[in-house]
């Protein structure tokens, strides 16, 4: 039997995906603004953050009303609660994109410190994770979601590596300190985005397998 409630759930899912697209765009735009030294684009990212904020509030409202009115159970209940959690992660992703954009505006006022190699790489990795975890959500593919989680390590490694590199820059040339710190913040923001993507992936696994894989040392263990 087709339930009216199914339409509500589908709408919730759809809204979450729209929110996901907005978050992805925010991140990719913020990095694009960095690479292209595009200040207006950076300002747009900052401006558009309130879209994600609205989405988060709205998804919470929807989630609460679906729980209050329909008393969902089993997979329905997981979908609603997971959607609310994912929306929070996506909103944080948006916040990180805003942070990046702010730093980009600062950076663009000065000459480029160094060719950007690691940051675009991190951005691609983090966005890849975000995309794959959301795809896994759409495709109900928990294996795909599981595969996302360990990829966080790679981003962490690059972040650490970049950190060391920037520290050495700062030691060598004190005039680079401000720019190096901005770049550090951007790197840290990307690392956080990857964390959020991993969180989303974990939620997707919970949604489709009803198994909580958070805070486990061996995240690949299928048991």
């Amino acid at each position: 039997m087709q339930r009216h409630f199914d339409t509500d759930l589908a709408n919730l899912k759809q809204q979450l995906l729209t929110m996901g697209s907005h978050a992805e765009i925010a991140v990719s735009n913020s990095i694009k603004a960095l690479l292209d030294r595009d200040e207006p684009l950076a300002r747009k990212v900052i401006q558009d953050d309130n879209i994600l904020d609205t989405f988060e509030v709205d998804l919470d409202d929807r989630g609460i009303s679906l729980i209050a009115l329909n008393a969902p159970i089993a997979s329905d209940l997981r979908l609603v609660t997971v959607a609310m959690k994912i929306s929070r992660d996506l909103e944080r992703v948006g916040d990180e994109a805003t942070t990046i954009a702010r730093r980009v505006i600062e950076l663009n006022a000065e000459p480029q410190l160094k060719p950007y190699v690691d940051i675009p790489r991190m951005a691609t990795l983090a966005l890849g994770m975000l995309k794959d975890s959301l795809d896994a959500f759409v495709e109900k593919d928990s294996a795909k979601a599981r595969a996302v989680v360990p990829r966080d390590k790679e981003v962490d490694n690059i972040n650490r590596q970049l950190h060391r590199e920037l520290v050495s820059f700062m030691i060598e040339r004190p005039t680079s300190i401000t720019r190096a710190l901005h770049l550090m913040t951007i790197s840290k923001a990307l690392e956080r985005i990857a964390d959020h993507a991993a969180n989303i992936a974990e939620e997707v696994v919970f949604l489709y397998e009803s198994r909580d894989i958070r805070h486990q040392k061996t995240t690949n263990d299928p048991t």
Partner: protein
Amino acid sequence: MGEAPVTRAPQVKTTELAAETPAIVEITDLSLFYGATKALKNISVTISEKIVTAFIGPSGCGKSTLLRCLNRMNDLIDNVRIEGKCHIAGQDIYGHDIDTIELRKRVGMVFQRSNPFPKSIHENIAYALRLHGTNSKSEMDEIVERSLRQAALWDEVKDRLHTSGLGLSGGQQQRLCIARAIAIQPEILLMDEPASALDPIATAKIEELILELKKDYTIVIVTHNMQQAARVSDYTAFFYMGQLVEFDRTLKIFTNPSQRQTEDYVTGRFG
């Protein structure tokens, strides 16, 4: 690092609260007495068109009694006296020039216990139509089919329209009663605990049906199943001891009621 994927989701509207619709039932300071007992105490409530309004409350709180005021079914009970006003579509239904036949034609009712007539499925609906002057066979067949389709029953009974309505399952019987009620196209459909005697699956079907029917009808449903009220209604009125305690959007009632009594009832602390 190319363009981010944006094609996944179309924009959806962010709020889905029930749209405000014009009022169709206006009850003003209505009290009802059974002999000397005041069963309804100065109720005032306005019900809007083409939405579902639920009456909830513990047994004996007056919710069914109020529902039966709306099509004057209380007239059938001896010693009932009503004070106050009840306007439907602008007319005072307790005015002295009111034809209850016409009123009941415009305000249909579905009862707690399914009560199909001991006639065929077709005849059950045809009976209602004949009462109001439909006699042509082709027209009759057309309305019978349309009503059964609207009641989501057609596919299950189309091959046995001329067998007894009493041969149907409980849930089907109730949907037949709904089909019979909507065959004469009332403006308002009153439902007095329509699913309380049904199993969960049949109940779910009735609820889905209510959500479909609200596109065309104003529905007032009495239920002692709070979750049912939450699932199907847009507005909810909570009654206690013959009084209207709270009337608000269903979401409000079930997430943040204004009255302590309402909160205690919907959270299951009493009642």
